[in-house]
């Protein structure tokens, strides 16, 4: 699990952790059942306060992205759950909204954007392509 933290983003560190782990879970890079590092291990890896990691894990547990049980560690839950689906939809929605706004500001037409999306899809690997049907 590779996370990228920044103090310049104006976003609290624990929120950055929550968002990135959610995205990794929703995109399948953290498959269902994956055990997250222990609080201590992740704190040592990222060199951040263990309480910050604990707070992020609590938040992830509350929103159902992970479950944590004594002896079993903290594991990623079934991402097919309605909540995770909603989360995935929300991530995509945010991105598309940003893309559409940016394109309009730069003076591109809707067709230009669609054309670019097609072009990038063409560059994807076959197994990635499978999940992006027309």
């Amino acid at each position, binding site marked *: 699990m590779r996370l990228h*933290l920044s*103090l*310049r*983003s*104006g*976003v*609290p*560190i624990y929120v950055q952790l929550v968002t990135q782990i959610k995205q990794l879970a929703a995109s399948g890079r953290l498959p269902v059942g994956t055990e997250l590092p222990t*609080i*201590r291990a992740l*704190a*040592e890896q*990222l*060199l*951040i*306060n*263990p*309480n910050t990691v604990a707070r992020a894990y609590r938040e992830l547990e509350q929103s159902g992205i992970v479950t944590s049980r004594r002896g079993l560690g903290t594991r990623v839950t079934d991402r097919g759950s309605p909540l995770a689906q909603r989360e995935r939809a929300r991530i995509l929605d945010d991105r598309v909204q940003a893309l559409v706004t940016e394109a309009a500001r730069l003076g591109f037409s809707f067709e230009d954007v669609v054309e670019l999306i097609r072009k990038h899809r063409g560059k994807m690997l076959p197994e990635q392509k499978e999940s992006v049907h027309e």
Partner: protein
Amino acid sequence: MSKDFMAAGTELPISVQELCRRFGKKTALDRVTVEVPKGLVFGLVGENGAGKTTLIKHLLGLLKPQSGVVRVFGGDPVREPESVFSRIGYLSENRDLPVWMRVRELIFFTQAFYPDWDSGYAEELRKTFDLDPTAKVKTLSRGQRAQLGLLLALAHRPELLLLDEPSSGLDAVVRRDILGAIIRTVADEGRTVLFSSHLLDEVEYVADHIAFLHEGRLIASGPLSDIKAAHCLFTLHFKQAPAAPPVVPNTISREGGGSEWTFLCEGGHESAHRAAAELGAVIAEEEEPSLEDIFVARVRGRREKMASLREEN
């Protein structure tokens, strides 16, 4: 229940009340009050010469308070140095180790002072840091001396780890070793770390609580998240550039010009909205300020205040 028992259960690792210290005409510490709760990482921040090292020297009993009270685990570090010292691990800023000793000798020598010395752990750290036991301290690099100093401070598994500017002047690898040691220490139930640093990023990643020293005075202290939540950083956009710099209540710093002005203010997120509404501006950007933003704004604000006071006189 005996009185001693009560004291043992509730004693704070560090309690400093109204501590004052002068060196000649210079006031190094001016009525400083700090309490460090158990089990936390406490970051002491401030510019060079702000009084951080002087405060740490009082905790170690190396300086006697001219007025005020210093307690470490409830004890007086000047009068009961042995009982206080055995519970502390300390890494000094200068890492003043005896240069004529060999690494192995220095480890044996230090071990003699601590009944709780953990030789296995010391050896594990020595291997992790790749320190040659037969090397003379004189021949070690700056980073290796810091690692050795850290080993000596950690191997008796102290309840309180005091680090004075632990990563100043060190490369990224050794800094990671030091920060890792801070995190491991506090991850062990009930242990406490106090470290001073002028590297605010480092403090922001690692500390639970902070204290800001500026010219010997404490200008803010408490949980880092509270301190951040008590400040807001926002940029106002005006349709028409105001004739004079806009004024927002509780401003610590103001920058900008023309139609965009950026403020760092005391108060939460609602104070940004109130300011925008009152001035007829829109909030172009709003974010949580970093520790560095707050620190720089406060120090600058103080300097400007002093300069305007001098002008008036």
